[in-house]
């Protein structure tokens, strides 16, 4: 609560606003809607995956093709998140700290991956990075293939994840106290030292949050990836695609087993990142 409310309110951390009407009605509608749209279907997912029994569940997950798909999805999502951490930070810094022509336009453009439908992004990136595309054609003479290889997945996930880092870090840069940097400068620190020792520690929790969001999105991403990935089983086949393939073969139990594993794994990773973040916040007081 940010408002300077009545004094008592703060000390009890909120209170029952009995005078405001609509609590039973709105809570009832919310719970019903959530149950119908989200909770029941997700419960069906978990229930279906138990239909395999433990042995079948394990067999599905330990299948080399499944393991490879998990390695591709999680590994490349992590790599893309790391790239976005670096470039997202750079973009956020440039947008927040420098004034140059076209800044507002670029600032608005950063949200493009949020707004552009993934299928559109997918076919566009695939065309762009194929051997006869504008960028792929530049790289092909050097023997660098992007489209239809795991590199293509990386490109798609970098595209999808960029705004998460930029938009998380940007407001933190805006709120940074210039005094700390100026104090460091009066104490004789170089620009690089100021960045490494003053600015970066303050931004790290936000960068990590942005990375986590980009990573979570990247792991589940489907539309922008399948067009550029090549989708070779064991090499460039992502988990969501494997689920779709299983569904098309009417292997519902197998698909839900992979889905459950994916949900749990993403959840665990996000939890770990959350803990790191809490630890960092405590340490750097961000």
């Amino acid at each position, binding site marked *: 609560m940010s408002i300077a*409310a009545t004094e008592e309110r703060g000390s009890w951390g909120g*209170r029952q*606003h009995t005078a*405001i009407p*609509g*609590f039973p009605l*709105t*809570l009832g*509608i919310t*719970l019903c*809607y959530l149950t119908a*749209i*989200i*909770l029941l*279907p*997700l419960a*069906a*997912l978990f*229930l279906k995956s138990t239909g395999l029994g433990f042995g079948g569940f394990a067999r599905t997950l330990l299948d080399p093709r499944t393991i490879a798909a998990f390695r591709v999805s999680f590994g490349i999502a992590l790599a893309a998140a790391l790239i976005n951490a670096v470039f997202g930070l*750079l973009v956020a*810094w*440039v947008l927040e700290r420098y*004034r140059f022509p076209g800044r*507002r336009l*670029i600032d608005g*453009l950063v949200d493009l991956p949020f*707004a*552009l*439908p*993934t*299928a*559109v*992004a997918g*076919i*566009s990136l695939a*065309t*762009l990075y194929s051997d006869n595309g*504008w*960028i792929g054609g530049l790289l092909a003479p050097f023997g660098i293939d992007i489209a239809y290889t795991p590199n293509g997945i990386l*490109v798609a996930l970098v*595209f999808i994840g960029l*705004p998460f880092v930029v*938009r*998380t870090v940007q407001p933190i840069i805006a709120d940074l106290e*210039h005094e700390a940097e100026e104090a460091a400068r009066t104490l004789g620190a170089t620009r690089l030292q100021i960045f490494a020792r003053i600015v970066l520690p303050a931004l790290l929790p936000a960068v990590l949050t*942005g990375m986590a*969001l980009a990573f979570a999105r990247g*792991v*589940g*991403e*489907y*539309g922008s990836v399948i*067009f550029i990935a090549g989708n070779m089983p064991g090499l460039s086949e992502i988990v*969501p695609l494997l*689920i*779709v393939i299983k569904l098309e073969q009417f292997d*519902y139990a197998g698909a839900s087993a992979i*889905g459950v594993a*994916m*949900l749990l794994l993403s959840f665990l990773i996000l939890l770990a990142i959350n803990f790191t973040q809490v630890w960092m916040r405590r340490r750097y007081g961000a």
Partner: protein
Amino acid sequence: MAPEHHPGTGAGRIVLILLAGLFLVAFLLVPLAVVFSEAFAKGGAAYLDALGQPDARAAIGLTLLVAAIAVPLNTVFGLVAAWCIAKFEFPGKSLLTTVIDLPFSVSPVISGMVYVLMFGLQGYFGPFLAAHGIKIVFALPGLILATVFVTFPFVARQLIPLMQQQGTGEEEAAIVLGASGWQVFRRVTLPNIRWGLLYGVLLCNARAMGEFGAVSVVSGHIRGLTDTMPLYIEALYNGYDAVGAFTVASLLAMLALVTLVLKAFLEMNYRDDLTLAAAQVSRH
């Protein structure tokens, strides 16, 4: 906007700006340009011809129809949920907020799959539905359900922090002055959140019209019947009709651009009415 504190004389600053600019051009601007360049690769006549295809018209109509149902549903739900969460204290509130956020952290493919598991032929309610001749999966209801699932946090996520920040003072004042519950909402709360609401609806709509993974699983890909625009794009692209695919894609790209412009406009003019906290902006 804070004045620039780093004098940033000379090379360092220019290098950073160029580096960031180059990265953004390669990753954002060029892909956008490719869409339009490919769409018009064979000229305007081919573009118009692709749009004139009956299947293209059907896909556009279906996308509009799905959005026209899913977006209002989620708008009403978002308002109701935000009222409940922002104006009252109750145990389990943070759990409820987490559940509302859930679709953001679930792969779209899974979002679609859960409805196949429920309503598909081998699903829990499949036999019952088949016996009564009701088709949900591979039909319009499935598309709507999957779209509702995927887009449902947008309005609620936007409104909850906004309404929490605005507090309950004005509502209480209205109640003491004798306003009924509906009057409080209509005359006090709604005017205060209208820009935030519009913002949430805008993002919700962009996602609803562009959603691919979730609807792909429940659609059944019957061209002219259950293919929305993104699915139709996929079908054309896989059928080596690049011009057709990019032509339809260009419509969605324009929708994205219009969304971005409106979004930027709202952020510029009504920043205080949106509460653009970092967590909210980056949550989609």
